[in-house]
């Protein structure tokens, strides 16, 4: 593995190996190793064409805990916004000798373009590309599910996961569908038909337009953020109607099974896709997702950067 561009880059075994490594890193961290020398002398560039303080800090923290040097390159709003500039930026980073580039970009496929183009020899880690994928989010979600539901071998056979909301535009949903299926879970997408992609029949998932009929049969309810710009694109009549039909409110929360959990990739729109009650409930594992994000990203950096040759 040279790059992590898509969950499809990982076999089931490789995914489980990453998750297991993340767990060991968690044990080592809790044992007092706040900082490990593992990647000393390696440089990781956070190349962010879109704002995402959370994801950037998570990768930065992961890299620093492995003693890598971190360079933050925020490209948003500057002259490097599109086109040729991705190539120029990549060549600059190459000249600087970056070992890994963590890229967040508004265009689907930007990470793959960076990896395949020959502009750069560094390992490329996709930290979210347009509406395509966000593989480390899927890994941290799987890690959190395993932790909370006590599935130590990461075999998710029989597990029922509902992903609720804007599937059409969600890179989190795409990566999660791929990884959860790899690990054996049964995935149901829950959304209004306008937010389900044409072509979803090829994904191998269940689709349910009725949240109420699904909510009581799920082990994991994964809520997606509704972007404010969708409001004016005719996907649903109003925020209030969306919230009534697809928001996780107290009534729906109470109908969830006893052991089930609520996830959200953040940042949450409280009162829109998730009520404050649900966000703050015992079932919510949102803060664990944040904590686990660092461990999973440490595991990815370790896997990509520690070896001389790729596996």
């Amino acid at each position: 593995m040279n790059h992590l561009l898509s969950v499809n880059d990982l076999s089931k075994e490789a995914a489980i190996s990453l998750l297991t490594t993340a767990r060991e890193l968690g044990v080592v961290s809790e044992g007092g190793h706040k900082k490990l020398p593992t990647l000393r002398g390696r440089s990781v560039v956070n190349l962010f064409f879109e704002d995402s303080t959370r994801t950037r800090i998570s990768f930065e923290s992961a890299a620093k805990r492995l003693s890598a040097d971190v360079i933050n390159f925020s490209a948003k709003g500057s002259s490097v916004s599109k086109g040729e500039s991705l190539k120029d930026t990549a060549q600059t980073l190459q000249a600087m000798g970056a070992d890994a580039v963590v890229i967040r970009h508004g265009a689907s496929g930007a990470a793959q373009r960076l990896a395949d183009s020959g502009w750069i020899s560094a390992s490329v880690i996709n930290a979210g590309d347009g509406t395509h994928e966000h593989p480390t989010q899927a890994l941290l979600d799987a890690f959190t599910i395993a932790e909370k539901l006590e599935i130590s071998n990461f075999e998710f056979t029989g597990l029922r996961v509902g992903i609720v909301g804007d599937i059409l535009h969600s890179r989190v949903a795409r990566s999660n569908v791929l990884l959860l299926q790899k690990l054996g879970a049964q995935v149901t997408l829950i959304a209004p038909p306008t937010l389900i992609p044409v072509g979803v029949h090829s994904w191998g998932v269940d689709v349910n337009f009725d949240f109420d009929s699904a909510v009581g049969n799920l082990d994991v309810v994964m809520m997606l953020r509704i972007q404010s710009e969708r409001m004016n694109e005719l996907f649903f009549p109003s925020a209030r109607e969306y919230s009534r039909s697809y928001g996780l409110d107290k009534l729906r929360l109470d109908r969830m099974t006893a052991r089930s959990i609520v996830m959200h990739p953040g940042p949450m729109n409280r009162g829109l896709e998730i009520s404050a009650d649900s966000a703050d409930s015992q079932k919510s594992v949102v803060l664990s997702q944040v904590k686990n994000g660092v461990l999973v990203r440490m595991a990815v950096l370790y896997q990509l950067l520690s070896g001389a040759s790729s596996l």
Partner: protein
Amino acid sequence: MSYLIKAATLSDGAVVDILIADGKIARVAPDIQESNSQIIEASGLRALSGLVDLHTHLREPGREDSETIASGSLAAVRGGYTALSAMANTSPVADTAGVVEQVFRLGQAAGLCDVFPIGAVTQGLLGEQLAEIGAMATSSAKVRIFSDDGKCVSNALVMRRALEYVKSFNGIIAQHAQEPTLTVDAQMNEGEISSQLGLKGWPAIAEEAIIARDILLAEHVGSRLHICHLTTAGGVELVRWAKSRGINVTAEVTPHHLLLTDESVLGYDAVFKVNPPLRTEADVHALRAGLADGTIDIVATDHAPHPSEDKDCEWQAAAFGMLGLETALSVLVSTMVETQMLDWAHLERVMSHNPARIAGYESHGHPISEGKTANLILVDPSAKRVIDRNKMASKSRNTPYDGLTLPAVVTHTFFNGALVHEVDRGAAK
């Protein structure tokens, strides 16, 4: 200069000698004896009428960094074309007599093939006010085809008026069928692949809805409609239905839509980004069948050069379009002739005779026979070549076939009796 082509095989299979003199085909007969001509040994070669393209983007004036009329003409004759139709989306737009005359003159100056300008339907391609269609028709360029290609004439009233207006001089509106409200920021065919790649989908219906509307408009006003680059199975059905009703509609398909599918997009390589987008395998089969049964009248290249910086970037930021002139015949041989869906005579009709007839290019698109203008080509059907994007005559390199081995090489191109392109047959093999 006169040429004597020996033992060429015509599209109907007859093996003949062809004498070219004074810009004309002087004689077509078995075993011509003529001592003052340059002899071209054509045993094993096909002789076809020079190809005619009704859909070419030459970028001049405005984007001479990606193509000029001269470089496009060279690409054309290498691909076997003796007539091009230069689309109107230049800068400035070809929406006045002045611009179309300039394009026409530049084509004459290049002198490798005829470059016939296409006029814009609306001013600035904005879809609002009709361009000066009459002035372009009566200019020295004698424009007959009008198109806003690159953009759709989406307003039904504007389309109706344009169809009506061109009737007075037997003009034709070539529509780029794309309902704009269904394709805002669209990136690729909407379907399984777009759902996986997270690229905004471009539904087939956006094309078919406009085709259906315009067929009915053309019937209503009794005018001529030409559908550019058909890409969907549904579109083929609509044209088939229109023809069965006797509506005066013609349709074209591009070589790339006969060969490539949206699976090419999987690597996000923007060389496969094209408008209209690559569709599914089912669509490809429907297009091939439509071309074979005559529903689709012609092949047009939609040759669309772009500089590398507009392709060497993330998909979303890249320009739409791909090169076509130098590979069109090879792709057609590969997809239609070698699959036995078209014979050589039919191929010659859809790439030369039919487009010339639709556009009214009188010196082009005639079966090879005595007295006609000597616009013809020789093709080695048994030769293979590996497409190399760095060896294109075009100023741009955005061919989607780089590295692919394709059959058939155009060995000679005659334009008005002059040999404007020739390859060493030994080197071609």
